[in-house]
Every structure is written in structure tokens, then in C-alpha cells.
């Protein structure tokens, strides 16, 4: 008799051409929070999909409370009391919170066979309250924030009496404060005896919520540790299989003359009096909490949104950017935060994605020259070490890190002076992060001016020569990269007192 709620032994799953999971063992104790870590492509998602019945394993056994079970489809998994919550809500935005919570198991009056709305609203409210959330169950799901929608999903899991809740990268889309609230909810679930499987990239999550940690690498089980037995460095070693003595490679770029200057840029309701400058070879960090207006400033500098007042200077000349096309012609490039929505055309090949912004270079009087196009794409893929069979591979089949490299290649093919990178390492695994940092450093060495937007403190501290902190649409502090500390940045980015 094992003390595991859920035990999995020797789980193996192959897809055509790839072994996604190879003999993975896993044990979940009652009432524990078990964090699964691993690089992208380590098999975390496949593993979860086997528990939730989206995939069935080729080999291996699953035991629930010591009894062998067969999970063939998502319904089996739900019936066994397993619920999953994803990074982005999978609910129905146009239905009310109550409807979302009770979807599929509505409360029906025995006598009249109609839905008991009041009872459902009341119970929904109770579930939400028990999670410490103040959400009106009558509003539409779509009107809630990402964090609130996740809480609704957790309430839904509770309403189905789920004993095991799986959270797949739940904090990826949350602000720091929202993450903190989620941690509290996870603690509450633990008190109630619910077991939680928590998938994450972030060490912060791991140290905050985990009882135990399991690391997967290349579809193989590496090990399970208690939280206090292991530190961040050990986990990195376990995840990437090699020691990363230094995540942030040394920067050799020489900072040159001023290249780009923003003066008193304002847009009502978004940002006000934004002023900073970027020199050649300099990496300027733009940080602050999510919602501080960083992305909006960048989008205004790239012409995606307009600004009301202020001036922008490039190489000493005032410019007025009105469209992305014009920004690129002037020499400003932008790597969007949402790489799948804004950065790439997912079903297109690598080559077509890379050349899209600069088709002029590969064509004669409007006619595209496919050979020239492919040659350039191959050159950039090689330079940035994009891992793919060929440049004709669709980008949808690449990992997050490689997709990001393709977007950077898009920028490099244009003749740029200033490159704005909006969260370039978001959702990218540790190994690929290092590769992207190396690319950023080499861009600086080549004399580009770089604006790096990031929420990740270590990234900002490790990479930037100058750090601009924003809060509620204004710049609250500017630090020299050497003097900045995480405390100083945090203090500047959070409103400590109400004026």
C-alpha cells in the first residue's frame, strides 16, 4: 500500500519520429503541492496530457489511491476527480461566471427539470469566497482579468469535487501581485487536502509553493526532491544537464554616441512624460510591473499606437513615427511580446517568416527571387543557431526559443539601428534564454542600440547598462546598470504609499 494519491510508473509515449516520454515515474502525495520543472520540450505538457486523458500512454501504469486505472479520454480523468487549469482560460468568455463553473453539471430542480439559477449563483459565490476572491458570479467571464479567470477555473475544479488539480504554467500570464494571490490559493487548497501538480518555469513559483519538485529532461525522469533539499543551481543542472556557471554572458560592447532619444512622450491614459536615451552598443532596460505602460511606450515608438505629444530623435534628427512600416524604414525594429500573435505567421515556413518585413531585398520589380530568399534565411538561421530541419520547416513546429530566434532573424534582415525587444525570453527555457542573451549582447557589440523590456528582475540586472523603471505610466527611476539592485528596482516599481 503506497501513500500516493496518484502514482505513475514507467510512462512512455511516442509520437511519430519522437519519444516524448520515456519511462517516467511520478508519485503525488495527498495534500502536497508538487512542482514539475523542465525545459520546453522536456515532456511536461505531454505528461500532463496523459494524466488528463488528452493523450493515452503507449506503456506504463497509472494508480489512483493504489488502484490501477485506465484513463482513455478527458472525461475519464474528470470522473476520477482530476481537473486541469491552464495558463489561459479555456472557459467561455460570453457566459457568466456561474455558468462557467457549473458547465456540464448544472443544478437541475428535480421537480420542474429547470436550472436553479439562484442556487447556482449562491454556490458559485461560496466557492469563489472560499478562494478569497471577490468576484460577482453573474458577470461574464470575459470581463474578468486573466488572474480572476484562473480563480474561476479553480472554483470550477472545486465544484466538481476534484481531488487532484493540475496547473499548467498558471503564473506565466500573471503580474507579481496576482501570482502572490495564486500562491495563497494553492496553500488553501493544500489545507483542504487537495493535491496540486504545478507546472512552471519560474524558480520563484517553485520556492514559494512546492513541497516537492520533479524534474524532467528530454522526456526522461531525472529526479524528485523535497524543496529544502535543493537550490536553484541544482535544478538548473538537473534541467539542462550541464552547469550554467553564468546565465548572463559577459558583455563586450563599447558604448558609443547617442543614437536615440525620447523626450516627454505622452499618451493620455497610457503614459506621461517619458524621456530616456539610448546610445550605440547600449542595452537599456525598461521594467516595472505588468500594466505600468512599458509595452505601450514601445508600441508608440514603433508606430503601432499613436502618441499625443513629445518628441523622438534618431541620430539627432527629430522623427515622427506613424506606422510600423515607417519605423522600420527609419531603422527601428520591434520584437513583440506576443510572439505567436504578433511576431510570426505560425503556419508559414521559417524562410517566409524571416523575409516578410524585407521582401524588397529579395525581389526584382515586385518579383520574389526564391533562391536569394532561401539563401538569406539559411544564413540568418545559421547565425542565430535556429534548430530546424531546414528553412522550409513551418515555425509552428519549432520550440519557443527557436521561434524567438526566427523573429530576431526577421529584425536582422532589415537595416536597423534601434531594436526594441519586448519580453524576448518569455516562455523560453533556460538553455534558449542563454542563447538569446548571447544574441542580444552580440547585437550590442555590432553597435545597435537596444531597448530591453522585461519583467524578470535577474534579466534586467544581468543584461542592462541602464535601467528605466516605470510605474503607472510614468518613469519613477533611472539606474546605472552597475548600481541597481533588485530592492531599488522593486521599490521604484511598486507604489509604496498612496498620494
Amino acid at each position: 500500500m503506497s501513500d500516493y494519491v496518484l502514482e505513475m510508473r514507467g510512462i512512455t509515449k511516442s509520437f511519430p519520429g519522437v519519444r516524448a516520454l520515456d519511462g517516467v515515474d511520478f508519485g503525488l502525495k495527498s495534500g502536497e503541492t508538487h512542482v514539475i520543472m523542465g525545459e520546453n520540450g522536456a515532456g511536461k505538457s505531454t505528461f500532463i496530457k496523459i494524466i488528463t486523458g488528452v493523450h493515452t500512454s503507449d506503456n506504463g501504469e497509472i494508480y489512483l489511491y493504489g488502484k490501477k486505472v485506465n484513463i482513455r479520454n478527458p472525461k475519464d480523468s474528470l470522473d476520477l476527480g482530476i481537473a486541469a487549469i491552464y495558463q489561459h482560460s479555456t472557459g467561455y468568455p460570453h457566459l457568466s461566471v456561474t455558468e462557467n463553473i457549473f458547465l456540464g453539471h448544472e443544478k437541475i430542480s428535480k421537480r420542474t427539470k429547470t436550472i436553479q439559477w439562484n442556487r447556482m449563483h449562491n454556490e458559485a459565490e461560496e466557492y469563489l469566497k472560499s478562494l478569497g476572491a471577490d468576484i460577482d458570479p453573474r458577470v461574464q467571464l470575459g470581463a474578468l482579468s486573466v488572474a480572476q479567470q484562473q480563480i474561476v477555473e479553480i472554483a470550477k475544479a472545486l465544484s466538481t469535487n476534484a481531488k487532484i488539480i493540475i496547473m499548467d504554467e498558471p503564473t506565466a500570464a500573471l503580474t507579481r501581485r496576482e501570482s502572490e494571490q495564486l500562491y495563497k490559493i494553492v496553500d488553501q487548497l493544500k489545507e483542504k487536502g487537495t493535491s496540486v501538480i504545478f507546472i512552471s518555469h519560474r524558480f520563484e513559483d517553485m520556492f514559494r509553493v512546492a513541497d516537492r519538485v520533479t524534474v524532467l529532461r528530454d522526456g526522461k525522469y531525472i529526479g524528485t526532491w523535497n524543496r529544502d533539499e535543493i537550490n536553484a543551481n541544482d535544478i538548473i543542472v538537473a534541467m539542462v544537464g550541464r552547469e550554467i556557471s553564468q546565465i548572463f554572458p559577459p558583455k563586450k560592447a563599447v558604448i558609443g554616441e547617442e543614437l536615440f532619444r525620447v523626450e516627454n512622450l505622452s499618451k493620455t491614459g497610457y503614459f506621461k512624460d517619458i524621456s530616456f536615451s539610448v546610445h550605440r552598443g547600449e542595452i537599456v532596460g525598461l521594467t516595472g510591473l505588468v500594466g505600468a505602460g512599458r509595452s505601450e511606450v514601445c508600441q508608440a515608438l514603433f508606430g503601432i499606437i499613436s502618441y499625443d505629444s513629445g518628441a523622438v530623435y534618431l541620430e539627432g534628427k527629430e522623427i515622427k513615427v506613424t506606422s510600423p512600416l515607417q519605423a522600420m524604414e527609419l531603422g527601428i525594429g520591434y520584437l513583440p511580446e506576443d510572439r505567436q500573435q504578433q511576431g510570426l505567421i505560425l503556419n508559414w515556413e521559417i524562410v517566409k517568416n524571416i523575409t516578410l518585413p524585407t521582401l524588397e531585398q529579395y525581389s526584382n520589380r515586385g518579383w520574389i527571387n526564391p533562391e536569394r530568399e532561401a539563401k538569406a534565411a539559411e544564413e540568418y538561421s545559421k547565425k542565430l543557431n535556429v534548430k530546424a530541419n531546414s528553412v522550409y520547416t513551418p515555425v509552428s513546429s519549432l520550440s519557443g526559443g527557436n521561434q524567438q530566434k526566427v523573429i530576431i532573424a526577421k529584425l536582422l534582415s532589415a537595416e536597423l539601428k534601434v531594436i526594441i525587444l519586448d519580453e524576448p525570453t518569455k516562455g523560453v527555457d533556460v538553455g534558449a534564454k542563454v542563447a538569446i542573451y548571447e544574441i542580444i549582447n552580440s547585437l550590442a557589440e555590432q553597435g545597435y542600440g537596444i531597448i530591453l523590456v522585461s519583467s524578470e528582475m535577474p534579466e534586467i540586472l544581468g543584461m542592462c547598462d541602464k535601467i528605466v523603471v516605470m510605474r503607472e505610466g510614468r518613469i519613477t527611476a533611472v539606474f546605472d546598470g552597475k548600481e541597481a539592485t533588485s530592492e531599488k528596482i522593486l521599490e521604484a516599481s511598486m507604489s509604496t504609499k498612496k498620494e
Partner: protein
Amino acid sequence: MTRESKSVTLSGKSITRFRELGLLVFIVILSVSVQLRNPEFLTFENINDMLTNTAILSILAVGMMMIIITRGIDLSIGSSLALAGMVSALTVSKYQNLSPFAAILIGIIVGLGCGVINGLLISKGGVFPIITTLGMMNAYRGLTYIISGGRWVSAHQMPAAFKAIATGKILGINNLVFISIVIYIIFYYFLNYTRTGRKIYAVGSNPESAKVSGINNERILFMVYAVMGALAGLAGVLWVSKYASAQGDTASGYEMNVIAACVLGGVSIDGGSGKVPGVLLGALLFGMLENALPMINVSPFWQKALQGVIILIAVIVNVLVKRSVDRKNLMGRKL
């Protein structure tokens, strides 16, 4: 590296050819079964007839495909076709000595005008394509009645040279078929090998990403509607010449046939995908159905219903074949 990438290009090309395989198989099966019931079907004359009758549909289908690729739709083409046809018919009935080329040019200009209005409303005005073209469908139709005063322009009012547009031959091929072949060649190269063609697919596949990549989405949208209008105008002249009559209700509802031909040809209503050869096959299959059903003595009452059912079956067969080809490709993928 080069050898590897070459092999991938080759297999990439064979997929696209395979992608229309389902449709091709369906066309062959249909022709064989019709042929068994009526040996007249696959004669040179009937095939020639069929192609002539399909030419106008196929011309319109290329334009519609471009619009659907950009996630739009144009419901007004039946009306702009009628308007362009009517204007050119009225002109030639008044100026009997007008060259047929001038008549065609007039039609194209009128159609282009209609397309430009649609394009401006959609790209600059930001009105949904289905709303814009639904409204303009009625507006252009009404205009057709107004300028004709509700009267027809019939065969005896048209000069022989005008009627000869549809009956004449170039290099032994009927003019209509010849024009449509030329248009297909132009658009095949336009969509696959030019910058603008590439941008049309980009705007349809992911408008946001296209914008961030420095593409002027509005200009592309404007362009596809304008081109559609010009093609509809051309089709209007050809139509009026072919049937030797211009009426207020010419080609009423014809846009639906054009959309059906596109869907048959594998153009995804979600946008972003659609190929010129596919649309050609789609239009041909549609034309075949129109021709084949009467030939095997299906009662006129049943023809429409049967046509609809066969279209659905063809779409399903095509999707199934595509899926299995895609799956085979995935299986063969080296990781």
C-alpha cells in the same frame, strides 16, 4: 544543408499537388459515372461547351479567392457584374461602331469603380466585408435598374462585333476560355511569386503579425476588393455578350456559386490559405455539375438539390484526403 533543404522543397511541392488530389479524383469519378450513363458527355463538343460555360465563373473565383484569403467576402459581385454588363451593353447599343475592346474596357472600369467603393469602405472605413458588400449588392443592383430604366438590352440592339466577344476564337480556343486561361496564368504567378501576392497571404494568415512586419494591411485589403471589382466588370461584359442580353437581374445570386467554387477548391473561409490550381479545379467541378446533371436526365426539380449534396460530398472527400496526406507527411517528418 542544401541537399536537405532541397528534398524538403520537393516534398513540400508534392504536398500541394496532393492537396488537390481528392478533388481531382472526385472529378474523374464523376466524369466516368456520367459518361457511362450518357456517352455524349466526354465528347470534344460537350467539353468545349462546358469550359465555355465555366469560364466566367472561374474568372470570378480567382478574385473571390484572394478576398477570402484576406478573411473577407464579397457578396456584391453578382450586382457589379450586372451593372458593368448593363453599362457596356447600353453603350454599344448607342454607339454601334464601338470596338469590342472599348466595350470590355468600359465594363472593367465600371466594375473597378464598384470594387474601389467596397475596398474604401472596408479598408479605410473599417466596415465588415460581409456588411459592406451586402449593402453594396443592393445598391449596385438598384443602380442597374435605374440606368436601364428597367428595360432589357436585347440581342438585336447589340452589334455583331460585341456578340462575337463570347463566340470568337483565338488560336482555336473560345475567347472566354482563352481569357480565363490568361487570367489564371497571371494570378498564379502574381500570388506565388510577387511581393504583393505574398503580402495577401500574410494579411490573411495573421493580420496583426503582418502589421508588425511593416505591411500596410489597408492597402492590401483595398487592392483585393478593387481587383475583384475589375474582374467582375470584365465578367459582366463577357456575360452580356455570351447571352446577348443585358437585364436588371443578370447574375442575381451568382456570388454564391462563386463562393461555392472557392470552397470546393479548398479555399479556407478562415483566411490565409487557398491556391490558384485548387480554385481552378473547384470552378471546373462546379461547371461540370451544371452540365452533367441535365445530361443524365435528372429532373430539373432535383438538379439544384443534387448539386448541393454533391458539392458537400466533394468538400468532405477533399478534406479527408487532405487530412490523410497531412498525417502521412507528419509521420514521415524527421525529428
